[in-house]
């Protein structure tokens, strides 16, 4: 009994010895934990770049404009309008007046300069500042290129700014290949087109004599796979973007071959082929033209997409009775179903980061673009409309572009993009109707 009391006393004493530390002046710091914050666009100022040669004056402001549009277009940044500026930026090397930018709550500041040399080459340089920290974020960079490539240089500046602030790669210096559409719904003309991700510099890759569908970039962005009816029935073609030369892939044996997609090494193509009414998945070595059958089921297997490491394929199948998503090894074999929600799932596309799968979902007469983890968990629907389909990922896995078609006899297709948070849903500018977008990797 006594023992116990002694022990207790000792313990209390020890406790008493410890406690004051927490109570009195800490020589340790005050500690707090912040678990709630806000999510809002970061105010960024991009003053007109400084023209360092007279010939660069117009380009200097255009480049700043494109950089601003790139950043603001992500929904993650907000433009601090030039009308709010206190101190103009007239020299690229002059120290930044942080106080003036703080005063207007510009949290990031991009300054730049443009010059044109004797050979007509354009040099663009920029610096990025964390205004409130009063320091530069990373080193300045300089880009040089032809005058015709000024938009690319602007996109590269924006990519660098984006990735330094957000911590993930950018996606502005990229292109989109898609199907350009004209004509009424029952006589729609389709041809392949390619453009910058923001809709600039559109070029057409095929004429509209025959139906073309669902183009897909190679991992290096130099080739495009697509489905065309030019031989009479759907066949897969590969097109060289630079030369616009094309050839048919030797998908012999079947009636109809479609829905192709490159593997991450650019050598392998996985696609659907139909025989006797039954559609299965095949994979082809592009060099040898040798195909291997991956699935053997009486159901429809289509819309395959590789995991970024090339080891697995996610695809759509109606083997359960309605279209659902499945994953199997890239060489074929046992497939496991990953979609279990209500409705029908299709066109799964593995994110370039590997963590998510984007898909089209059809439920109760509406279409959605959604994402889920690769085990099927955490499904989130990002959009809802009469008809949304065919998601494609931005190179950094942050944004999804897709086709949206409006309802009714006058229905038109156009491209939309949405952040994977579900925010910043907006149309993508194209010349006329558009469908089936595929986003290129970042250009080198």
């Amino acid at each position: 009994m006594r023992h116990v009391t002694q022990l207790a006393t000792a313990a209390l004493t020890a406790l008493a010895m410890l406690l004051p530390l927490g109570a009195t002046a800490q020589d340790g710091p005050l500690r707090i934990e912040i678990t709630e914050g806000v999510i809002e666009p970061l105010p960024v100022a991009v003053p007109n770049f400084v023209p360092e040669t007279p010939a660069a004056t117009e380009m200097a402001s255009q480049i700043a404009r494109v950089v601003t549009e790139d950043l603001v277009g992500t929904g993650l940044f907000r433009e601090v309008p030039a009308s709010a500026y206190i101190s103009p930026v007239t020299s690229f090397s002059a120290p930044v007046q942080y106080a003036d930018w703080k005063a207007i709550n510009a949290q990031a500041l991009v300054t730049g300069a443009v010059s044109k040399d004797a050979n007509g080459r354009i040099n663009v340089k920029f610096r990025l500042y964390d205004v409130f920290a009063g320091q530069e974020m990373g080193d300045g960079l300089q880009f040089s290129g032809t005058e015709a490539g000024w938009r690319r240089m602007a996109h590269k500046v924006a990519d660098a700014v984006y990735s330094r602030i957000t911590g993930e790669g950018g996606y502005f210096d990229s292109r989109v290949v898609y199907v350009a559409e004209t004509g009424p719904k029952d006589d729609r003309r389709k041809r392949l087109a390619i453009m910058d991700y923001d809709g600039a510099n559109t070029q057409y890759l095929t004429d509209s004599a025959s139906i073309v569908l669902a183009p897909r970039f190679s991992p290096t962005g130099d080739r495009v796979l697509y489905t065309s009816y030019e031989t009479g029935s759907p066949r897969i073609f590969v097109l060289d973007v630079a030369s616009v030369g094309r050839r048919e892939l030797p998908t012999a044996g079947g009636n109809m071959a479609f829905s192709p997609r490159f593997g991450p090494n650019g050598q392998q193509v996985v696609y659907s082929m139909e025989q006797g009414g039954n559609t299965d998945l095949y994979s082809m070595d592009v060099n040898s033209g040798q195909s291997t059958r991956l699935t053997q089921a009486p159901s429809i297997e289509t819309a395959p997409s590789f995991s970024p490491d090339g080891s697995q394929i996610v695809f759509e199948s109606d083997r359960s009775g309605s279209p659902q998503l499945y994953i199997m090894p890239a060489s074929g074999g046992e497939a496991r179903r990953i979609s279990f929600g209500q409705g029908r799932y299709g066109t799964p596309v593995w994110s370039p980061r590997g963590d998510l799968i984007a898909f089209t979902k059809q439920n109760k007469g509406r279409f959605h673009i959604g994402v889920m983890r690769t085990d099927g968990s955490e499904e989130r629907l990002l959009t809802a409309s009469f008809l949304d389909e065919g998601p494609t990922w931005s190179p950094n896995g942050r944004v999804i572009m897709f086709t949206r078609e409006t309802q009714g006899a006058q229905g038109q297709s156009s491209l939309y993009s949405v952040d994977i948070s579900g925010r910043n849903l907006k149309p993508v500018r194209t010349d006329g109707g558009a469908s089936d977008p595929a986003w290129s990797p970042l250009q080198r």
Partner: protein
Amino acid sequence: MHAGHVISGSGHALLIGWLLFGSFSIPPEPAVEVTNVALVSNEEYAAMLAAQEPPGAATEVEAPEAPEADQAGTPEVSDMQDAQPEQAEPEVTETTEQDAAPEAPVAVPEPQEVTDTAPEIAPPSEDIAALPPEPRPEPDAAPQDVPRVAPQPVARPEPDVKVDEQVQQPAEQSEDAEVEQEEQEATAPEEATTEIVTEAEEEKSLAPSVSKRPQARPEVRQAAVEPEPEPEPEPKPEPEAQPDPKPEAPKQDEPDAVAAALEKALGGGESESETPAPSGPPLTSGEKDALRVAVSSCWNTGSLSSDALRVTVVVSVSMQEDGRPNGNSIRMVSSSGGSDAAARQAFEAARRAIIRCGASGYDLPREKYGQWRDIEMTFNPENMRIK
């Protein structure tokens, strides 16, 4: 039919024209080269420093990286199997240097401390209660696609109210610590919603079943400034024993009466005498909460990558007596949950939050300066991932 022939004919003519003249061939993507910018030489930099003491931009003093090598274009490769990019573009090989370039020299320059540590001691003024104007709440402020997500919904402010991070009172600090009524230059928090509402979810909320949306509350004052009031200040006693047995201190989130009583008892008890500033009793949970809430309202995770949103960073900051953070003192103590790069972005966002919302001083009791001179803030974004 005639129209058909015309269309067909012109189509063929176009096709032939295309074959002949190759009008579809795409101009090769313009090439872009990348080099680092090092525009300021050491000498220039030194001169600049001499000229004006806030060294501003010029923290970077690297020599220019290797100049852009004008590479000959790779010849056009017509073989489509070739995985190399065919375009004859001088590839941007230097790009990697931007990564290779060590960011290290960005170390915070010392001189700035001088300016920062010489504060004119302003009269205590932290008693001014922040009372915002009464923004008339929108009749039904259901979460919509507002480009801002905050812990609590904020109704759209009156059109003529300036949007600000904090509910802010007019700058003049009136002597009387009275609660001020609505004033001319009042600001209100920006309209916000509590969670991201995707188009798909909006759809649902349009459904006839009237879901109970949180009505925009009239006391918007709390809105931007107060995330869930779960007071958990974590008293964390230091484990090292110090032979100075004192009456037990209560857990800090206990009623203030006790704390107040203890304040007296413990008043001048701090043994570290190196600090001239008053130390005072520990911060009450309310005081800590106020600080937490204030920093929260500027902690913007909206522009962070999902990687960075997985990183918890612990950031230390030393404070000036006027309640403002010393910007140069902000350091990352530790991080967990992500790569170094992700941690850096997470840290930068945390730093912006501390500096931005502390620009006019945090509302901290001056008599307890010793308690909050050094602060370690843990920024845990667990709740801030895709909301």
